[in-house]
C-alpha cells in the first residue's frame, strides 16, 4: 500500500511541475502578455513585480525561483492591486468555496449513491424512472441554464430564497448554490451507481450469495455495495475537475465571493499574476484529489493492489 502511494506520487509531481512550467511560460513570454516591454504599468506595481518575479534574471532562473516561492506557499502578488498578495485574496475566498463545494460533494455522494442503489434494486419502479430522467436532464441542461432556472423558480417565482449574494455563511444564501451543484453531480452519480449495481447484482458471485440463502440486507450491504461503489469512486476524480467549472458558474450566478469569482474577475481585469497563482493553486488541488481517488480505489479493490 505504501509502495503504491509512493509510486503514484512519483508520477504526480513531475506532472504538476510541467503544468506549472507551461502555464508560466505562456504567461511570461506570450506576445501582449503582462511582461511585454511595451506594456505600460504603474510604478508601484512595476517595482513589486520586478522584485517578486525576478524579471531581471534569465528565464530558467525565473522559473526555478518561482517554484521555490511556490513551495514556500507564496502564490505571488496581484497585478492590478498593489497592496494585495494572492495569498491574502485566497485566504478570504477559499473558505467560502470550500464550504459550498464541500457541502455539495458530500450531499451529492450520499444522495447519488442512495438513489442509484434504490433504482438498481427496484428496477422499473418509480424511483428507477425518476433517476433515469434526472440523469438525462443533468447531462443535457448545462449548469448555467439550470442555475438561472432555479433562481427563477425559487427566488423570483416562489420568493422563498434570495437570488444571490452572501452573508457570512448564513444558510439562506447557501441553499440555492449548494442545490445547483448537488443537482448536477447527483444526476451523474445516480446513473453510474445504478448501472454499476445492476451489473453487480447480475454477477455470478451474487448468485452464489443468493444460493447460500443469505438474507437480502446481507447481500446488498456486505456483498454488493463495495463492488458497486468502485465506478462511483472512479468518477469522483473527473467530477472534481468538472466541479471547478460548476463552481465558476455557480459563484457567478449567485455572486458568491469564492475562488471562482476571483478567477473570473481576475481574468476580466487581465490580472495576470492573480490568475496564474489561482490556476496553480487549483491545479494542485485537483491533482491531489485525483491522487486520493487512486489511493481510495486501491483500498477498496483488493485485486488492484498487485
Amino acid at each position: 500500500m505504501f509502495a503504491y502511494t509512493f509510486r503514484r506520487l512519483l508520477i504526480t509531481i513531475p506532472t504538476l511541475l510541467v503544468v506549472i512550467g507551461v502555464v508560466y511560460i505562456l504567461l511570461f513570454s506570450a506576445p501582449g502578455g503582462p511582461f511585454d516591454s511595451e506594456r505600460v504599468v504603474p510604478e508601484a506595481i512595476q517595482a513589486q513585480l520586478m522584485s517578486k518575479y525576478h524579471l531581471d534574471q534569465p528565464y530558467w532562473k525565473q522559473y526555478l525561483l518561482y517554484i521555490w516561492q511556490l513551495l514556500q506557499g507564496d502564490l505571488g502578488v496581484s497585478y492590478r492591486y498593489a497592496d494585495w498578495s494572492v495569498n491574502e485574496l485566497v485566504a478570504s475566498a477559499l473558505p467560502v468555496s470550500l464550504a459550498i463545494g464541500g457541502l455539495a460533494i458530500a450531499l451529492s455522494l450520499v444522495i447519488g449513491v442512495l438513489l442509484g442503489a434504490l433504482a438498481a434494486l427496484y428496477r422499473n419502479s418509480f424511483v428507477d424512472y425518476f433517476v433515469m430522467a434526472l440523469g438525462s436532464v443533468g447531462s443535457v441542461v448545462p449548469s448555467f441554464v439550470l442555475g438561472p432556472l432555479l433562481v427563477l423558480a425559487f427566488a423570483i417565482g416562489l420568493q422563498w430564497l434570495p437570488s444571490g449574494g452572501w452573508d457570512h455563511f448564513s444558510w439562506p444564501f447557501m441553499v440555492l448554490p449548494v442545490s445547483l451543484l448537488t443537482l448536477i453531480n447527483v444526476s451523474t452519480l445516480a446513473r453510474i451507481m445504478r448501472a454499476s449495481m445492476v451489473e453487480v447484482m447480475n454477477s455470478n458471485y451474487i448468485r452464489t450469495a443468493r444460493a447460500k440463502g443469505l438474507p437480502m440486507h446481507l447481500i446488498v450491504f456486505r456483498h454488493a455495495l463495495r463492488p458497486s461503489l468502485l465506478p462511483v469512486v472512479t468518477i469522483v476524480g473527473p467530477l472534481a475537475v468538472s466541479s471547478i467549472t460548476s463552481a465558476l458558474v455557480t459563484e457567478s450566478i449567485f455572486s458568491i465571493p469564492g475562488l471562482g469569482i476571483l478567477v473570473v474577475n481576475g481574468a476580466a481585469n487581465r490580472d495576470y499574476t492573480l490568475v496564474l497563482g489561482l490556476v496553480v493553486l487549483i491545479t494542485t488541488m485537483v491533482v491531489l484529489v485525483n491522487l486520493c481517488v487512486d489511493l481510495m480505489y486501491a483500498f477498496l479493490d483488493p485485486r488492484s493492489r498487485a
Partner: protein
Amino acid sequence: MPSSTPAAEPERSPWRDALLRFRRNKAAVTSLVFLVCVTALCVIGPWLLPHAYDSTDWDALKLAPSLNHSHWWGTDESGRDLLVRCLVGGRISLMVGILTTLTSIALGVVWGATAGYLGGVVDQLMMRIVDIMYAVPYLLIAILLVTVLGRDFYLVVLAITAFSWMDTARLVRGQTMSLRKMEFVEAARAMGVTTPRIVFEHIVPNLMGLVLVYATVTVPSVILTESVLSFLGLGIQEPMTSWGVLIHDGAQMLDSAAWLLILPALMLSLTLYSFNYLGDGLRDALDPKDR
C-alpha cells in the same frame, strides 16, 4: 444458442449497412433533421427577418414574445429583437463549434496516428503528454489563455481547441495500433511506400467512420465550453453574440424578462441534445455491437 443455418444474404458494403441502420434509428434521424433546420435558419434567417441583430427599437423595449407584433420572440432591454439575436448567436456558436472541432480532430488524428504508427518511445512520450493534458483543469487554462491573449474570435477557438483534441488522439492511436498489424499495411511497406504516405493514405481512411462519430460528439462539448466562457463574460465579445452571451444577458433580466433566458437556453439545449443523439445513432450504425 446456435440456430439453424440461415439462407445466404447478398453482399452489402459496410457503408450501406451503416446507412440502413442509421435510418432505422428515429431519434438520430430526427436529430439530424433538427440540426439541419437550425443551421439553415441561423444562416439564412437573419437575412429574411425584418430586424438586424444590433438595431435597437426604442418603441419596443423588453417586449414579451408574441405573434401579434414583428418581434416574435420579444426584445431585450435595448429593444433588440431576440429571434434575430438567437439566430446570429447561433451562427457564432455553431461556427465556433465546427471550426474548433475541425482543428482539434485534425490535431488529434495526426497526433494519434503518428504515435500509434511509430510506437515505442515516441508513442510513450506522446501519450504521456496526452495524460498530462487530461490532468489539467482545461477551463482554467482556457481562461488563462483568454486572459493573456485576448478575446478575439480565433483566439477563443484556439483556446478551446487546446483541450479538445485528446480524446480523438487516444482513439486514433488505439485504432492505428491495431490497423498497423494488419496485412495490407505490411504489403504497402513491402512495396516501399514511405511512412507518412502509409499513415495518410492507408490508415486514416479506415478511421474515418470512428472519427466522424467522435466529431459529432465533440461539437456539443465544444459549444458548451464556449457557452460557459461566454456566460462568464470571458468568451465571445460584444458586438458579436453567441448563445452563451445571450444566456448571460438573459440571466440578468430574470425578474422582468424571463424569455430572454429561456428561449436561447432552449435553443442551446435542444441543439446539444440533438448532436448527442446524432452521435449515438452514428456510433450504433457504424458498430452495432458497441452498445
